[in-house]
């Protein structure tokens, strides 16, 4: 690691002020950042520890407000999350391991970097995200884990979070605070697609702090599920994951919220599939058609074409499972 200073922020104002110095980076649980520091992928001169900021999880007008310093386990085990937003509990529990979930914060989970192996290998490979403009060795090299939606020739990395996939489906908003004040952005608008600048991953201004995540009240009558497909049964990142919330009345889909993980540079809200589903029959045929409509935009590469069919099948199976559950 390159030397850096360490300071613990006492409150949000303190954090934003401390991070105003060039070269500063916020530190959550450290489960991603410490690894990146050790590999010198990240080279900050100062760390501002924000784990002492709000970690409360509270009802807010039938919805939920989650402090950015809340640990992943604390969110997953919270009674209000388990009863109102089980898809969020399930998604968090699908990620990493018990130890890592105890350390990881909500803010850190939102801003965790990609797990693209080329990005982590400073000495071995070229990477536009690490060194803007130098090229991307993933495009020509083995890339079965990489993106099929939303990627660009400059970067084909996927966003690795499970939690974010559920938050995208749940219409979560993210509270930000910077030197100029506070603002709210939708989770689906927090991360940016790579385009020609994969090094710019979010809409955050330099030094801007995530202070919390807000969930709207649950939609009555919706059933939900999170399913993750990976190379081993546990403790592995997603090849494809699906967060789904589905409302059905008299065999007709009344509401559908769907997001995908493991396939795109950001948590991927499947708006095309949703439009195809709403108002249509709640049948496996219609579910498959909706999934195919979403994946029609896929641009698979040499090694990751399997993700297209995997995503279609997983979406279909998850939605079909929700309808069967409803009938049972």
């Amino acid at each position, binding site marked *: 690691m390159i030397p850096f200073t360490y300071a613990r922020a006492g409150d949000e104002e303190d954090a934003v002020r401390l991070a105003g110095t060039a070269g500063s980076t916020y530190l959550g649980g450290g*489960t991603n950042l410490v690894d990146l520091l050790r590999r010198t992928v990240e080279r900050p001169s100062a760390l501002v520890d924000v784990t002492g900021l709000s970690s409360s999880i509270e009802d807010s007008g039938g919805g939920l407000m989650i402090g950015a310093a809340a640990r992943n386990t604390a969110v997953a085990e919270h009674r209000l999350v*388990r009863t109102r937003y089980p898809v969020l509990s399930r998604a968090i529990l699908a990620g990493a391991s*018990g*130890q890592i979930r*105890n*350390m990881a914060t909500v803010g850190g989970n939102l801003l965790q970097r990609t797990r693209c192996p080329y990005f982590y290998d400073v000495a071995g490979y070229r990477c536009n995200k690490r060194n803007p403009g130098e090229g991307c060795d993933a495009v020509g090299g083995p890339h079965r884990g990489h993106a099929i939606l939303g990627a660009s020739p400059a970067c084909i990395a996927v966003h690795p979070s499970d939690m974010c996939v559920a938050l995208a489906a749940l219409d979560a908003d993210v509270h930000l605070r910077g030197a100029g004040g506070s603002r709210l952005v939708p989770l689906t608008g927090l991360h940016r697609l790579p385009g020609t600048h994969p090094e710019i991953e979010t809409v955050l201004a330099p030094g801007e702090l995530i202070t919390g995540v807000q969930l709207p009240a649950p939609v009555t009558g919706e059933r939900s599920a999170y399913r993750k497909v990976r190379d081993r049964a546990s403790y592995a990142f997603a090849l494809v994951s699906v967060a789904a919330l589905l409302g059905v009345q008299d065999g007709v889909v009344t509401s559908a919220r769907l997001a995908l993980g493991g396939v795109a540079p950001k948590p991927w809200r499947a708006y095309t599939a949703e439009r195809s589903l709403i108002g249509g029959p709640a049948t496996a045929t219609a579910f498959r058609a909706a999934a195919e409509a979403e994946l029609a935009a896929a641009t698979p590469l040499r090694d990751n074409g399997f993700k297209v069919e995997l995503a279609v099948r997983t979406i279909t199976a998850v939605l079909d499972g929700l309808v069967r559950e409803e009938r049972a």
Partner: protein
Amino acid sequence: MTEDGGPVRINGSPVALPDDPRVSLLDLLREQAGLHGTKKGCDQGACGACTVLVDGQRVLSCLALAVQYAGREVVTIEGLSEGDTPHPLQRAFVEHEGFQCGYCTPGQICSALGMMAEVERGVPSYVTADLGAATAGLDGDELRERMSGNLCRCGAYNGIADAVAETFAGRTR
């Protein structure tokens, strides 16, 4: 900036925090405190060999910067036995051959203790069927899912699972 919370306590004794914030809790344990029980497998969060308990919660000491743990209570494998009497879980690992080379064992044992505290608190897992249920258990796939953050290169998983299941039988709620 808040005042720093003083030293970190390791197995009941205070240990000064490093001046250099780059030092991980794992390196503090092994190199400063001379406690070599906690192992460095991957140093990147992927194996669980470095698992310790902080205020009763299992964490990975390789991904923890020691300076973040001022005033916290760390328990390592060295802190589990009572004098020469091993912890019941340590004894069960021996009885069930829950290890071969033993490298992953301190992490497995600390992880299992932290896991059991989670189960007793009712924390669900990815394989828990009913997230609304107030209770949690170790039946079916639960134990292996909850312990999946600890790899064993020797493949002693059956013995590990038996030792953990036997030690905690009847303690699920």
